């Protein structure tokens, strides 16, 4: 039996968050106190990895419990624990692929790791928040940390520009989210998600205009963070300009956190008025998938192509959000985990292939890779096939569950549009594969310097992608146990 309890104030419930914060600050202090040169500070990466691992073990201890601490503001249930696992895995893999990258790019500051840990805290708060305040604060902790991380290469103009674009548009969308929260608060008199649901149930499921406007503005605010279509304009530029390891991080973490909050707000608070928001999300889903996939077709830069592909993936995830049944929640959880492995894996290979100052990022720079570094080419192919949704990879199983959840709720047209889109997507993923296998090298490949860190990250991603593709049952079962306790 799951053990349910409501605690008024329980500091132990946020132990993983406290550990991450503690290690984040420790990294800062150790960085200042050490007298070594910037390029030699390996211990910063070790320290932050230890923090992530400890936090993961602590949050694993909560499995099966349902806790509402801090007067119901912070929830621990299987749903938030699943997301905590995803975020911590994302942070851990990012640190692994960062270690040599930051040395190569001369950005080996202590803040780099600290900010990764801090933004992970923000994501955890977003996934665990049971009221709008907690979700808002979590979102801001996450976003502000990532604004800085994007601009970490502060002498490079592309990084500056990406950071400014992300910051201005991110703060702009924060304004909309905050206004939405204010209107929802004004209409219902509460910021707790459960009490909003109670209020709406009391009204018989009829929304007044204030609440409807608030809901729309919240969709805008979170839609920006998950990079859904009308609010996606920043994605390619920011993904291209950011340090590649950070691009991998922000393609997965904020998207997963955005969906965690999206699901919680719209399934718990607005769950009873599904008919009022499903059409908007339906349109968003179709727009997001189609724009992402169509524009990705003409990209020549690999980071931009992966950026548009990440927009398209947000579209697939929105399909499951529209379907709004228990199966769709577990489909989203599963898909996000699969997306984590294949995306970070692909970016890890991009890091290995590219050289100092982020050169060699064109798709044509990948041509002939299979002849020079066959194993890297196989790994990249695996990740790209998984993103395209070809069996037996994680991406296929994830897409399969998302589309079946849509059909189960009767959204057949939406599922068909989704399938057509994934067929379009195969084209641009295969373009990279074709370049790797069927064209001769267009440039001199440097001898490979695969550090043990990035090697481990790639191996974990490969194992994750294959494991979820061939034996999805175990993870799916965990995902099914992690669904939201609706109402």
């Amino acid at each position, binding site marked *: 039996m799951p053990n349910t309890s409501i605690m008024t104030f329980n500091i132990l419930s946020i132990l993983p968050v406290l550990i991450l914060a503690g290690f984040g600050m420790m990294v800062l202090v150790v960085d200042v106190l050490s007298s070594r040169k910037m390029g030699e500070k390996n211990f910063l990466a070790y320290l932050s990895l230890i923090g992530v691992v400890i936090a993961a073990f602590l949050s694993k201890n909560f499995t099966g419990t349902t806790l509402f601490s801090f007067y119901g503001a912070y929830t621990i249930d299987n749903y938030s624990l699943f997301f905590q696992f995803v975020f911590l895995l994302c942070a851990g893999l990012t640190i692994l692929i960062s270690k040599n990258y930051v040395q190569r790019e001369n950005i080996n500051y202590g803040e780099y790791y600290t900010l990764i840990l801090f933004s992970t805290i923000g994501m955890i708060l977003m996934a665990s928040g049971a009221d709008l305040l907690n979700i808002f604060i979590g979102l801001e902790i996450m976003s*502000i940390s990532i*604004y800085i991380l994007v601009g970490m290469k502060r002498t490079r103009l592309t990084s*500056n*520009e990406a950071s*400014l674009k992300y910051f201005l548009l991110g*703060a*702009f969308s*924060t*304004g909309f989210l905050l206004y939405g929260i204010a*209107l929802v608060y004004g209409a219902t008199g509460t910021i707790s998600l459960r009490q909003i649901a109670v209020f709406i149930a009391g009204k018989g499921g009829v929304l007044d205009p204030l609440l409807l406007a608030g809901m729309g503005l919240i969709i805008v605010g979170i839609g920006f963070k998950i990079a859904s279509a009308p609010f996606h304009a920043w994605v390619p530029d920011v993904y291209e300009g950011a340090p590649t390891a950070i691009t991998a991080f922000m393609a997965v973490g904020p998207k997963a956190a955005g969906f965690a909050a999206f699901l919680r707000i719209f399934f718990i608070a607005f769950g009873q008025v599904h008919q009022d928001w499903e059409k908007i999300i339906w349109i968003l889903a179709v727009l997001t998938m189609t724009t992402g996939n169509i524009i990705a077709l003409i990209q020549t830069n690999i980071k931009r192509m992966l950026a548009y592909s990440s927009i398209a993936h947000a579209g697939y995830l929105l399909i499951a959000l529209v379907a709004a049944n228990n199966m769709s929640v577990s489909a989203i959880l599963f898909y996000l985990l699969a997306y984590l492995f294949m995306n970070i894996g692909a970016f890890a290979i991009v890091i290995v292939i590219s050289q100092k100052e982020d050169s060699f990022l064109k798709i044509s720079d990948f041509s002939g890779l299979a002849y020079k570094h066959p194993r890297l080419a196989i790994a990249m192919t695996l990740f790209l096939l998984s993103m395209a949704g070809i069996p037996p990879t994680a991406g296929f199983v994830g897409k399969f569950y998302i589309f079946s959840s849509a059909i189960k709720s009767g959204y057949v047209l939406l599922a068909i549009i989704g399938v057509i889109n994934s067929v379009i997507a195969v084209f641009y993923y295969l373009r990279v594969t074709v370049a790797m296998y069927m064209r001769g090298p267009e440039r001199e490949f440097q001898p490979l310097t695969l550090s043990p860190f990035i090697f481990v990250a790639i191996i974990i991603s490969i194992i994750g992608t294959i494991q979820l593709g061939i034996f999805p049952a175990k993870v799916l079962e965990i995902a099914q146990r992690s669904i939201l306790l609706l109402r």
Partner: protein
Amino acid sequence: MITLTHYLVLSAILFSIGVVGVLIRRNAIVIFMCIELMLNAVNLSFVAFAHYLHSMEGQMFVFFSMTVAAAEATVGLAIIIAIFRNKETVNVDDMNIMKW
């Protein structure tokens, strides 16, 4: 008699001024000030709702949103300074290295 509606209309007007400012101005710092205007317009809504609903949550929320705005200001100005050092301009139309 000033009612809730007055506050809400004022807040909506301020918010819209902020949005229009973000869309039409070209100086990064002015855009940033317009964003601050949007956030503070929302704070006005929160306080007005809290007063008329007799609930403390709205006032509490304002403290947090002011803190967030301050943190955002710090990071935003730092980013703008970093860009000015490299490029000697804060005009967003000049931020055009990356295009699709």
